[in-house]
């Protein structure tokens, strides 16, 4: 086995595998290191693989071959209080046509499949290998060492696609310490239910899927909860900011339990069998907490580069990871052609990122980071909305107010004028 590679990729997640695929197709000698027994063995996420142009381009009609669960065509946003729920449902027939807007997937299956596509094109995949440290030569990064094993792997370029806890980026001096303020923790319970029961409860047919985002079910913590339908199971979980979790003194599984016990959710999961429990961190600091993404001999892609965002309605990460992986690979191809692996040469990776939808979207939603930290968003507003609707619908023979007046009165009572104005500005700036 050649121990010298054109490119060494740390991590066979979506970012790493797409980079490997691109590089292998360009005829380069590329090696992927994965610490899991197989790609995806260490990976969990909520569940939605978003439509990603670069994936459709590189693997046309991938949906016919990839292990997908369901096409998500129904999106629900639910504002919850302990005993009631207000939800908005969006259904779009176009979401059911290729290229599908989003599909639910299981990471151990999807990540293994994607890495396999890179291997078919000639990439070398080494599983059971945890990269431990970086090797430097003449001030440039030129390889990695593997934990618990003799020997080392050397190459011209290292792509760190090692996920949110990127020790590679840290060791390269590209990022500051991991801080609770920049990260969220996600936990998820996978619950088994027969396919027919899922279709019946969520009003779905065949391989249609639903995605529900809940606000107000995180025990007052900043964050949100989710539910995704898979073919024969549903994923229920939540993402909360680490610093708000720390300050609250609550345990994450107790908070998730409240969601599972909520009367509206309980109906949906009745009779389900717990199949698997998982946890993972998620970059939530937005563009401000991104690390440097390149140095001599190395580039950083995907979660490792902090490329992930949520605006309360969408949570995007896997599409940004795959796209950034390909951009890093394109840069590596240019560098290898030029025989120049210096920071100056690799700086074109940053330019490519800036020019892509990734950084544009992260900039567009940069204020969403602050909005998602509004405690009122996950507690007071859902309560307000359900209170208003309760007053609207409850019939008890007392005189009624007009809807708008009722809303104004309730909002002033709960939040106060100052709070309303400042939240209005924050939410407006983040989404409008």
């Amino acid at each position, binding site marked *: 086995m050649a121990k010298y590679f054109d490119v060494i990729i740390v991590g066979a997640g979506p970012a790493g595998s797409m980079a490997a695929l691109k590089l292998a197709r360009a005829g380069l000698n590329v090696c992927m290191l994965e610490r899991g027994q197989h790609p995806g063995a260490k990976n969990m996420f909520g569940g939605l693989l978003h439509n990603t142009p670069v994936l459709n381009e590189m693997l046309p009609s991938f949906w016919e071959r990839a292990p997908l669960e369901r096409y998500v065509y129904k999106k629900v946003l639910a504002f919850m209080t302990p005993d009631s729920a207000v939800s908005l449902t969006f259904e779009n027939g176009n979401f059911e046509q290729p290229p599908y807007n989003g599909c639910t997937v299981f990471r151990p299956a999807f990540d293994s499949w994607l890495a396999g596509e890179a291997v078919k094109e000639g990439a070398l995949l080494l599983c059971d290998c945890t990269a431990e440290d970086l090797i430097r030569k003449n001030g440039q990064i030129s390889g990695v060492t593997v934990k618990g094993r003799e020997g080392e792997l050397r190459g011209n370029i290292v792509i760190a696609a090692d996920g949110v806890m990127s020790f590679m980026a840290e060791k390269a001096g590209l990022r500051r310490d991991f801080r609770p303020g920049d990260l969220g923790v996600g936990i998820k*319970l996978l619950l088994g239910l027969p396919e027919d029961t899922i279709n019946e409860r969520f009003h779905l047919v065949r391989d249609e899927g639903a995605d529900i985002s809940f606000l107000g079910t995180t025990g007052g913590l900043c964050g949100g909860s989710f539910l995704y339908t898979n073919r024969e199971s549903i994923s229920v979980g939540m993402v909360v900011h680490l610093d708000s979790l720390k300050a609250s003194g609550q345990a994450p599984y107790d908070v998730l339990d409240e969601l599972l016990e909520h009367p509206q959710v309980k109906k949906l999961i009745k009779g389900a069998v717990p199949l698997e429990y998982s946890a993972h961190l998620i970059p939530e600091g937005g563009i401000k907490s991104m690390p440097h993404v390149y140095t001599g001999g190395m580039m950083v892609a995907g979660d490792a580069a902090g490329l992930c965002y949520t605006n309360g309605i969408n949570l995007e990460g896997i599409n940004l990871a795959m796209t950034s992986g390909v951009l890093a690979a394109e840069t590596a191809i240019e560098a290898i052609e030029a025989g120049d692996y210096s920071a100056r040469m690799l700086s074109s990776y940053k330019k490519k990122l800036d020019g892509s939808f990734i950084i544009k979207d992260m900039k567009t939603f940069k204020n969403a980071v602050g909005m998602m930290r509004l405690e009122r968003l996950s507690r007071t507003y859902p309560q307000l909305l359900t209170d208003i609707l309760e007053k609207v619908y409850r019939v008890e023979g007392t005189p009624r107010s007009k809807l708008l007046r009722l809303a104004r009165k309730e909002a002033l009572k709960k939040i106060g004028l100052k709070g309303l104005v400042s939240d209005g500005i924050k939410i407006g700036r983040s989404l409008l």
Partner: protein
Amino acid sequence: MNVENLPQLTQFQVDEQPHIIVNKEICRDCDHRACVLTCPANCYTFDEETKLLSVVYETCLECGACYVICDKGALDWSYPRGGYGVCYRLT
């Protein structure tokens, strides 16, 4: 949700070498012990009598939350050796 049962749902390939090492001296005087409540897999226990913090690394989900949340540098935390640790099947 009964946390005690949760790890049974998930598969682990346990390494005899722990990947988390706790500096018990630092933890003895910690004023928040945030790791105990934060860990999604309930791996940490603080014994009030002996004032010792212990960790069950065998059912760690390798999320890293404890490492990020501990502001006293009491944790020597790294990924397990390749192939060991949590091994998700579905999810």
